[in-house]
């Protein structure tokens, strides 16, 4: 695929005409919303700036064409969170350095490239992400008891004097418990034929799920419009969630670091949500109408009144405004939060069903500053 003019020049080496890269494309579904993942291009140039920020790091490169014109390209890379977890710092690349990159150009024809590979002048790979970097960091921690409040109930947030948050979900998308379905970190199925196993979908919902999957999830409103990763999707984000328990006000704030950096409020005294957050049929919400109570050491949250403006799971499982969720949170020890959700949506599913997974406590950190709206350029 030739690069957009005026950059389709020898230096850019529009090579590797790999007409279809289904596996690579599936591995980067959010990328497919912005970049053409069906063909790979290569370019070479001089670094003009490094923008070390979430949600995606950018390296700006001046690329010279055969006609002498210089075009500044933006090379997009994974998030600062992912790169730093893999041991990278921005000093690894400075303005003036020569680099080459291969990846996918922007669908809108602007001078942007998702850099699948970035190498320096000596051929050394830069800013590679190790998928298991975070899990290695958390492995081998000593076991510790569940921290508790003076009233004996578990603390879902950090103990006094400590920091930390929940991340590294053991499941990246909703799958009915008991089903074995392979998918990647974004919920893209390894085998589309497994779609019917994921959940008891109605026919139309199964066909829509297959459509979204085969379309590399490029219509995901979280990536297109930065809408909240609401519902169970809150607990599928690599960038974490945090519980802020306000005992004196009988409410819990759930802070979400992925997506658009949002929050959800959960009352623990069964009072109604009122006003603009009433969460009724006439006022459906991203985070719905929540009511929580403790059953032993488990916080049980019932919610309804959702709108349909978001995907409630990575991978694109549909839901309707008839969605009702029952979520159960159990901090089984200091480092583990067990999450279980029962989905009831007669608009999209043939029966209620349950999915569950664990999240890991990342100590010594606060939720990263991550706003999808800030995806420069």
């Amino acid at each position, binding site marked *: 695929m030739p690069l957009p003019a005026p950059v389709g020049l020898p230096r850019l080496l529009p090579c590797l005409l790999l007409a279809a890269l289904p596996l690579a494309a599936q591995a980067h579904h959010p990328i497919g919303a912005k970049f053409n993942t069906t063909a790979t291009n290569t370019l070479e140039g001089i670094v003009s700036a490094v923008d070390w920020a979430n949600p995606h790091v950018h390296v700006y490169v001046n690329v010279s064409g055969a006609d002498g014109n210089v075009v500044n390209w933006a090379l997009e890379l994974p998030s600062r969170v992912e790169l730093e977890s893999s041991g990278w710092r921005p000093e690894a690349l400075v303005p003036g350095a020569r680099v080459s990159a291969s990846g996918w150009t922007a669908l809108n024809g602007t001078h942007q490239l998702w850099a699948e590979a970035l190498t320096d002048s000596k051929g050394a790979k830069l800013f590679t992400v190790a998928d298991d970097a975070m899990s290695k960091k958390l492995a081998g921690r000593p076991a510790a008891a569940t921290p508790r409040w003076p009233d004996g109930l578990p603390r879902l947030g950090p103990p006094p004097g400590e920091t930390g948050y929940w991340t590294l979900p053991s499941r990246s998308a909703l799958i009915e418990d008991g089903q074995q379905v392979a998918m990647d970190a974004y919920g893209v199925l390894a085998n589309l034929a497994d779609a019917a196993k994921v959940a008891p979908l*109605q*026919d*139309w*919902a*199964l*066909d*829509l799920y297959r*459509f*979204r999957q085969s*379309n590399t999830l*490029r*219509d995901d*409103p979280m990536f297109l419009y930065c*809408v909240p990763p609401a519902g169970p999707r809150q607990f599928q984000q690599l960038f974490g969630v945090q519980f802020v328990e306000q005992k004196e006000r009988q409410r819990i704030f759930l802070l979400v670091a992925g997506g658009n950096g949002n929050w959800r409020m959960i009352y623990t005294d069964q009072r109604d949500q009122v006003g603009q957050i009433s969460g009724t049929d*006439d*006022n*459906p919400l991203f985070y719905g109408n929540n009511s929580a109570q403790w059953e032993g050491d488990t916080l049980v949250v019932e919610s309804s009144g959702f*709108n*349909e*403006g*978001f*995907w409630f799971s990575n991978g694109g499982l*549909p*839901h*309707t*405004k*008839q969605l009702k969720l029952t979520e159960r949170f159990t901090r089984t020890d200091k480092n583990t939060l067990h999450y279980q959700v029962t989905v009831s949506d*007669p*608009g*999209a599913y043939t029966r209620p069903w349950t999915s569950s997974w664990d999240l890991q406590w990342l100590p010594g950190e606060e939720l990263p500053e991550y706003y999808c709206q800030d995806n420069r350029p």
Partner: protein
Amino acid sequence: MKNIVMKSTIMKSIAMKRAITTFAFLLGLASAPAFSQQAYPLSGTWQGDWGVNDKDRNFLTLVMDWDGKAVSGSANPGPDSTQIEHMTLNSANWTVAIDMPLKDAKGQTVQFKGEGAIADLGSQTRSISGTWSDGARKGTFTLTRQSGG
């Protein structure tokens, strides 16, 4: 004089009713984004037109909902509103079939039997285009889903 006053009062009453109806309709449209549908492909408010040729077109608004088993809804909310009698979605190929009475621009009722296909399924502003017939009368229709949330 009394007749003139009564006629004036009646006219004011009609005008008031029209204003209320128009306000209610606009209020309904204004609140539509709050019910924005990402899921069931037909749910939401759709706007477009239908007619027998390119010059003879009639404005069309459809408001549709999905209860998990069937599609319900109405056409052209307001004084000339009609109910959708039958609407089906074939998700195997994303085609639709619709059956409903409609009033054309001359006020004549047409039993609109349409068949169409959804385009740009993944977009909030997806569209439907197709053909319709009522006995010997036939033509085309187009609809585009209203965006929001």
